Every structure is written in structure tokens, then in C-alpha cells.
């Protein structure tokens, strides 16, 4: 009895005019509204009450350093040496972006990346900066930088000898996020500086710093939650389409509907695009 009540939602039969009820326009619209609603709720919660949702980035400065150096080693370049002074300037840059609520190399107050190098007293002959936000993992982050010619140029620039990295959590534009700042440099006179230069495998990388976070409690990233909702609704639709298509073929039904094969192909195309879209933003 119960089986008969819900089966028409998934299986084409006479009762639903040989089309799974969930694929009828009304339910497609319902799926659409449900999706938009879930996204709006997540966004509203993030903005209205930043304490409810948070960030769960797996990125650490150590991982960024390792992968940056891996990219250099792959190209036969010398790995960069970790410099805690450069990390301090990177951290100050990230904090400045959170405090003054901007996302750019130059601040609205006119501070350039070089301002932060100078503030911490790093004298350089050449220097550079890479920025990123909203990434979940280091792999995707470094991949995104390597796919961008200007960021890649910094990572594989043979003129740079040292690097500092900051991974800082805070609130930017009312949304909690993780900022990653890389500061590259070559000291003007290396020996004159009091820097702690160590090999990448035994350094003490600074821990992630919360700038505006109220607690150290690990919260769920709104991006992750949004992704979970997307996946559930998307997979549900695809499953219903597959069941509908399979039953139609099996029972050799001819009906007045759109092409199930066409719909599956189109949604699969969208799925691939989503899969290949890069996470977060780089600057």
C-alpha cells in the first residue's frame, strides 16, 4: 500500500501518464525553488549570524609551502626558504584586508604590498605577492595559482629566494572566509637580516590565526553546506531521470515528453563544468 503511494514519483506508469511524477514541470519547479531557498537560507545565516556557520578550510601554511616548493622542484628550480619575517608581513596583509574589508593587492587606504614588507623590516631586492580566498584545500589553491600566468610567475620565479605564508581566518564582506597570502622576496643583504631561514621540512610554520573569529570552535563552512545541498538535489534529479529512462526503455513506452537522454546529457555537462570550476578566488 505504502509502496504504491510513492512509487509513481519515481517510476513511469499509467497512473502518472508514463512519466515519473518528480520529472513533471510542477516538481521540477519545486526542486528549483527548494534549491534556491536552501541557498538563500545558508547565505542569510552566514551574514546575519556568523557564529552559526564558519569555515573549515584544510589549508595550512606548511602545506602551501610544501606544494609551492614541489611546483618549483618539478621545474628544476631551487625550493624557497621559509622566512618568518615574510610570514609576518603576509599575516599583516591578511589582517589588514579583514580589518579594512577589502580584497585586493592595494588597500583603499593606499597601502601596497610593499608597505607590509617595509613595516616588518624586510629589505628586499625583489618581492612579490599572491592572494587567495575561499578555498577548501591546498591542492585546489596551488592548482588555481599555477593555472594563472601571473601567480605562476611568482611561484616559479627564480629571482625569489624566500617565502612567507599566512593562512588567516576572519570575516570579509560579512562572510567568514580563509585568506591565504604568499609573500615572496630576495633579501637585499641576506646576512644583515635577522631571519630564521630553515629548510622546508623542519620549519615551524605559524598556526592559522583568527582575526575576527569569536571562538576557536570548528564550524561547518557555508560553502561546504551549500555544496552538500547542491549535491543532494542534483543527484536526486539525476537518479529519477535514470530510473525514468530505464523503465521507459524496458517497457518500450512512447510518450509525449522531453528527451530523457537529452536531459541527462545536459545535466551531466553541467556537472562536469561544476567539477572543473576552480574553488575560491585568487588575486
Amino acid at each position, binding site marked *: 500500500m505504502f509502496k504504491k503511494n510513492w512509487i509513481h514519483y519515481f517510476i513511469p506508469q499509467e497512473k502518472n501518464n508514463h512519466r515519473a511524477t518528480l520529472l513533471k514541470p510542477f516538481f521540477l519547479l519545486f526542486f528549483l525553488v527548494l534549491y534556491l531557498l536552501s541557498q538563500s537560507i545558508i547565505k542569510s545565516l552566514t551574514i546575519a549570524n556568523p557564529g552559526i556557520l564558519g569555515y573549515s578550510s584544510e589549508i595550512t601554511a606548511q602545506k602551501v609551502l610544501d606544494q609551492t616548493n614541489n611546483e618549483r622542484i618539478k621545474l628544476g628550480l631551487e625550493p624557497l626558504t621559509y622566512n618568518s619575517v615574510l610570514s609576518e608581513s603576509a599575516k599583516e596583509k591578511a589582517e589588514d584586508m579583514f580589518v579594512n574589508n577589502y580584497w585586493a593587492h592595494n588597500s583603499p587606504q593606499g597601502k601596497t604590498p610593499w608597505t607590509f614588507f617595509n613595516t616588518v623590516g624586510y629589505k628586499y631586492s625583489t618581492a612579490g605577492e599572491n592572494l587567495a580566498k575561499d578555498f577548501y584545500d591546498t591542492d585546489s589553491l596551488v592548482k588555481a595559482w599555477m593555472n594563472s600566468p601571473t601567480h605562476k610567475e611568482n611561484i616559479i620565479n627564480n629571482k625569489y629566494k624566500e617565502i612567507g605564508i599566512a593562512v588567516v581566518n576572519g570575516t570579509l564582506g560579512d562572510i567568514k572566509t580563509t585568506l591565504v597570502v604568499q609573500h615572496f622576496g630576495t633579501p637585499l643583504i641576506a646576512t644583515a637580516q635577522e631571519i630564521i631561514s630553515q629548510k622546508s621540512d623542519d620549519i615551524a610554520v605559524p598556526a592559522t590565526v583568527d582575526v575576527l573569529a569569536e571562538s576557536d570552535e570548528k564550524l561547518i563552512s557555508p560553502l561546504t553546506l551549500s555544496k552538500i545541498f547542491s549535491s543532494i538535489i542534483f543527484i536526486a*534529479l539525476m537518479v529519477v531521470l535514470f530510473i525514468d529512462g530505464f523503465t521507459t526503455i524496458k517497457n518500450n513506452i512512447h510518450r*509525449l515528453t522531453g528527451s530523457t537522454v537529452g536531459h541527462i546529457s*545536459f545535466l551531466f555537462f553541467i556537472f562536469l563544468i561544476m567539477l572543473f570550476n*576552480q574553488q575560491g578566488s585568487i588575486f
Partner: protein
Amino acid sequence: MIIPKEIKQKPVEYIILLLIFIFGFFLYIFINNSQAKILILSGVVLSYLVWSLYHHQKRGDLHTSIIIEYLLIILFGLVFLLFDPFAIF
């Protein structure tokens, strides 16, 4: 391997559809410009709509309900891309 009857009847139409998606996908991932990516997506979506109109016109069952179904599926896909946290928009 089960091949749907509709593909067996009109194989060329489905090959064209497949080529639209494959070509669109590779163009999308190999071009770095965001505006170009949006143009490519628009092109694929429009092609899918034109394909569906032609496909059902030929089958003799081009009805408003079918057009609405295609529009909703397209809207569905686009909304997913638009709100996807990894999306380009």
C-alpha cells in the same frame, strides 16, 4: 548494451547533441577568460534549446508542455552553476 529506442531512431541527432556538449566542455575548460566561459555556456544552452525544438518538430510532438520541460531543465542547470560555490560568475 541497452540503447534507447529514440537514439536508434535518430542517431545523427544524438551524435550532434553529444558533440555540442563535448565541444562546449573542452572549450570551456581550455579557455581562461571568465567572459568567454559565460559565452560558451550560453552557446551550449542555446544549442540545446534549438536541438530540442528541432528534435521534437521532426518527431511531430512539439508541444508547449515539452518546451516548458526543456526550459525548466535548462534553468535548473543554470541555477546550479550560478549558485555553485565553485562557479565562475
